[in-house]
């Protein structure tokens, strides 16, 4: 990072919070329109029935749960960068972690809607929550779906807290620099921060504590999500490798999404000097690791199917690779494993067009991965008589696209309201940080 004075850092970051251009508002309006269309579609689906989707028996889950897993996966980069890399004292995290955290919060919020969207009777969704009631009805904690409810809500709460916690010193800086409604907003959320030594001491301890709390969540949330499948008995779902495989996949997609979002964002918000290419390259470097892990998982799956000798497993593996969904499978392999390995070359890693292209394709690949995981085992069950394929209808396509709109809308509004690069942490400390005792 080039040498900045504290003032320069403040100015660099705060200029991104200036009034957006009209084009920016136009994009927001389009996203809102897309979201509105999705909400109407969801209303239609609720009023008419799940039959408006392409779902059937055997394929009871595909579109919405695919999106759920996808968005939850996206939401893994933030906590990874902010918590785990914080604990490891990785210097380059400072430039990108706030953006990743913001993305996480909106991705998890988007994801959390899908379990509701996919319910047959969404109007009684609260039955999934363990609330005391007169009839002494309690949810079934044997069900992985209940684990999901717990894991995702916990993750969401911790992510929000962690993001907010990191924001407090920055909000105070903004409060001091802004006027009008913004000042009132920041003042309320800055919680009276004045940057004195005591505050910093408590703050850093609390931040460290939260980081320690959030770190296992990065691992646990997607493990729990993977158990939705691994705890079922379908060939293609019932696999012990699912938890690490899903966690690696989630981080893979999350990192790719951070890169995808930051490349245009640093240009639009003129943050090129703070979010440098080397930061993005560092993220891409992590992608190589995750690509290798999921590549291993992809290789283990057919091997285990063959090694188990189980007819259903073998038949499923062949179906996935050569059946009607085979194109998705092969595209997914290329996008998720082959392309990220190109990051091994410094020139690729440090070229913005390459970064953007590959990270976008990783996103596509990771969505397809979840699609393949969802649809192929369901379509190819134990009894040949009751196999069936799934073809998406306009309803789930509209709702899926709308979820992307919701995510982007939230993210784009947030980056204009809150500093997308941490102000405080980019300020080199005058003295070594106080020892945590």
């Amino acid at each position: 990072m080039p040498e900045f004075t504290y003032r320069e850092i403040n100015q660099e970051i705060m200029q991104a919070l200036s009034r957006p251009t009209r084009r920016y508002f136009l994009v927001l309006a389009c996203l809102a329109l897309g979201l509105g269309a999705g909400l109407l579609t969801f209303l239609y689906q609720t009023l008419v029935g799940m039959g408006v989707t392409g779902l059937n028996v055997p394929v009871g889950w595909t579109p919405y749960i695919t999106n759920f897993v996808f968005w939850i996966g996206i939401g893994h980069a933030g906590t990874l960068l902010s918590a785990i890399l914080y604990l490891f004292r990785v210097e380059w995290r400072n430039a990108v972690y706030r953006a990743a955290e913001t993305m996480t919060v909106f991705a998890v919020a988007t994801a959390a809607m899908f379990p509701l969207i996919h319910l047959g009777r969404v109007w009684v969704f609260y039955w999934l929550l363990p609330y005391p009631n007169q009839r002494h009805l309690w949810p079934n904690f044997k069900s992985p779906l209940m684990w999901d409810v717990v894991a995702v809500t916990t993750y969401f709460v911790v992510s929000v807290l962690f993001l907010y916690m990191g924001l407090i010193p920055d909000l105070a800086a903004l409060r001091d620099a802004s006027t009008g409604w913004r000042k009132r907003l920041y003042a309320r959320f800055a919680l009276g921060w004045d940057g004195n030594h005591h505050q910093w001491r408590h703050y850093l301890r609390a931040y460290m504590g939260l980081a320690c709390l959030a770190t296992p969540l990065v691992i646990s949330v997607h493990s729990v999500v993977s158990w939705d499948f691994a705890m079922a008995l379908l060939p293609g779902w019932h696999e012990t490798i699912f938890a690490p495989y899903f966690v690696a996949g989630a981080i893979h997609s999350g990192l790719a999404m951070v890169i995808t979002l930051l490349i245009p964002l640093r240009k639009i918000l003129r943050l090129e000097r703070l979010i440098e290419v080397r930061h993005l390259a560092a993220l891409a470097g992590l992608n190589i690791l995750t690509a290798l892990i999921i590549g291993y998982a992809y290789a283990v799956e057919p091997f285990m199917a063959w090694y188990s000798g189980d007819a259903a497993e073998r038949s499923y593996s062949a179906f996935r690779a050569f059946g009607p969904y085979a194109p998705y499978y092969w595209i997914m392999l290329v996008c998720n494993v082959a392309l990220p390995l190109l990051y091994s070359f410094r020139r690729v890693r440090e070229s913005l067009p390459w970064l953007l292209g590959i990270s976008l394709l990783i996103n596509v690949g990771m969505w397809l991965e979840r699609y393949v995981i969802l649809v192929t085992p369901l379509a190819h069950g134990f009894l040949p008589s009751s196999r069936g394929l799934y073809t998406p209808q306009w309803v789930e396509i509209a709702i899926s696209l709308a979820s992307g709109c919701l995510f982007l809308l939230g993210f784009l509004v947030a980056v204009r309201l809150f500093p997308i690069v941490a102000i405080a942490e980019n300020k080199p400390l005058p003295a070594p940080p106080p020892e945590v005792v």
Partner: protein
Amino acid sequence: MREDGLRENERPEEPTLSRREWFKLAALGGLLGLGAQTPRTFDQLIPLLVPNEQIVPGQATWYATSCRECPAGCGMLVRNREGRAVKCEGNPDHPLNAGRLCARGQAALQGLYDPDRRRAPVRRRASGEEVTLTWADALTDLGKHLAPLRHSGRVAVISDLQTGSLAALLQRWLAWFGSDRYLIYEPLNYEGLRGGLQAVEGRPYVPVYRLEQADFVLSLGADFLDTWVSPVHHTQRFVEHRHGANVPGFVYAGPRLSLTAAAADARLLVAPGQERLVALALLQVLAAAGPLPGWPAWLTARRLSAFTPEAVAPVLGVTPGWLRDLARRWAGARAPVALGDPGVSPGPEASETAAAAHLLNLASGTPALAGTVDHALGQTATAEQTRALLAELDTGAIDTLIVFGANPAYSLPDPGRWQVALEKVRQVISLTPYRDETSLTSHWALPVGTPLECWGDYEPQTGVANLLQPTTGPLYGAPSPGDALLLLAAAAGCDLPATFGASSFHEYLRNRWRQRAGKTDFEEFWRESLRRGGVWSEPPASPRPTVTRAAASKLSFSPPAAPVGPRLCLFPTMTLFDGRGAHKRWLQELPDPMTKIIWESWVEISPATAQAAGLSAGQVVTVEAGGRQVTAPLLVTPGVAPGTVAIPLGQGHTAFGRYAQGRGVNAFPLGIAVDAVTVTPTGRRQELLRTDGEPYQLDREIVRMLPRSQLATARPEPLIMPLTSGFTRDRDLYAPPPEPERRWAMAIDLSRCTGCSACVTACYAENNLGVVGPDHAPRQRVMSWVRVDRYFDWRDPQAPAVFQPMLCQHCEAAPCEPVCPVFASAHNEEGLNMQVYNRCVGTRYCSNNCPYKVRRFNWFDYDWPEPLNWQANPEVSVRCRGVMEKCSFCIQRIREVEFRARQEGRPVRDGEVTPACAQTCPAQVFTFGDLRDPQSKIARLVATNPRAYQVLPQLNTKPAVFYLKKILND
């Protein structure tokens, strides 16, 4: 305590309402009254103004009647709840079906409650405009018209097969008009069969054989387990017989793999009309090998020299040795029987198949024919008689034509012919409950009741006289056909008591039955007959049929020759029969048992034929025969003989209600020619609407089979019992639930199952299943709780197609239960896997995790157009959209029996609970009972049977449904 709940000596509290408070409350009440302006509608639970004292709310009444969904005339009991008929079941006392019904019988209620039923008389003006009238106005008009026709002889009647009182009334009615033009019209009139029997025995009739006497059955195109003559009767007797002490051999030759063909030990698929060669070759071999005792001397091998196995085998596509083997089996049998029927085909060999088969029976002197009785189908009009009547209509000799029960405008081979004939008839009066094609071409359409609302009688075969009684009040006040005729006669000035001896059909019926009563008290006899559903007697021993020389001298058989070009095979389906089932949505939504096609027509050809013609599956083809053509999607299957083009009958209605209209094609017009059929692609492609996923088992051992020879030595499969004993520490994570008092379980005998799918429709009727319609059915959304899976194995000559009823397995370690986040899928205290609809939020996780894929999701709120909703079983809730549902083992029936047992202070008896599928199964595939009772039938069946196995045992789900392996007769 006193009656008013107060202790002795306690004074009731004084009312403390003060005058002021009274005013306040009164004012408040008045305001509330003003506020509550919305008119309150009351939903009546019992649709009767004056309660009928015979109807006890919550208690079912059963009425015995006869099924009239096909000419078989099975006995039927109809369950009536709160005045509405809600379920049909077989009459257990009935000699034909012994309590069983086929899918069409189960669906009879859908005819009763057809939402497109006619509600009022309609007159069609010359312009085609329909005028709706009241019955009184219609009768006045028609009376004016009919009165001058008295003694004129210018009145004719066409009806479906009617016997007994209605037929008698019709003849008397016609006689009043001086006419005898009465045509009993059935599209499937077994003319070829009758012609063959006429040729051999000198008498045309439709026989009902006693297959349970035979020790070898050879069917030549007679699909007696599908739709032939009396299918439930045949299935029930024959399947029972095949599982008795002396298992009869069974060989089939015919044009397609019907359910009957699939049930045979060996089968030969040959083009229609070629089946006869099998019988003729057998005759030749038997005559040459030194005739059997009693063999007619004139039937020499030389006479049959054209039909040596060597001459016939190449045409049939078998080796001569196959035919000689068959002849050996025939000769070795004590009581063999051959059934020959050419089906719908009117080709030159039409009657030869039946004649050759019957000649084989008679020449062999088989004792299996003893007790054969005539079926009423023998009384139906031949094509010649139908043509004669149409010709008479052409001359203008008939002024008024009454049509009822029949739909000639749909099923006549020449569709234009009907219109032409009608031009010369001044008045055509349709008596029909429906908006069928015939009634839409008539000048008058008078709505009459369906057989379920009417009095009547029907004698399907000698010795079986069924009595029909109303099982519910008449819908829309429709009179019965008999009453409608009497009303017409009265309107024409007829003195009913003088002419008919009765002023209502009910009275007329009773008068006729008085003759049956003989010396016994009539009222007693009548009540008893109504209770039993009819009167049946052992038919008089008929003289043993013999072949006469006189008849035989005229016998000639055309020499064997390979057909020129593809031949046509039109077949009635299990579901729609000859088309009369097409307006019933349960039947439309019931997959054809063999092809699993639903809601449409198809054209079947074999892969060889397809290849030769350059056709492939998924194409839409045009089939042309005799200048007529139909267009339907192509099904390429080895289940049809090479050189055969098979098309199902029953679809292609241009009217007949919302469920029939515009679906598929009507193949009846093709029936005038069978040879030189051409199949040409239209260039369009269309996936067939079918419900099966993969048609093969893929070596998964889902349907297991066992050769009979290994039956004695086979070791029992290891079973994982759905009881505490089924749990072991090394295999199970969770401890077993507490041992229940009862553990309901089911055994399904795959050896008995013919695939007929009656169970599926019975389940629809019992459990209020939604109908998803043609758009959603092929998208794997059919709601059937029990389905009949069909797996092909074309490499297996013994069992190319096997059937497996698949329903909720009520696993003890059910995969659906732990995954449900809200306990909507739960275990009950009797081991049943329950689905709590009210609690279900619709995650569909249970269905995903069900390895048997028997759970059904309500993708929509399925519609029940009025009055189809009247049929709904009040004991079973109707599920809303977004809820999972599945087989409950008919828990409402279990609870009813348990309640009765508790009231009577006794334990539930074994066999007392019967789920709807088990109740109706003509082949008695299902055994249901308490597995914990070691004396129960199910426990004994499972404990010792080397055939018992569970589907997907490797998953350790501990299913409570046990399958018994299919026995292959070797």
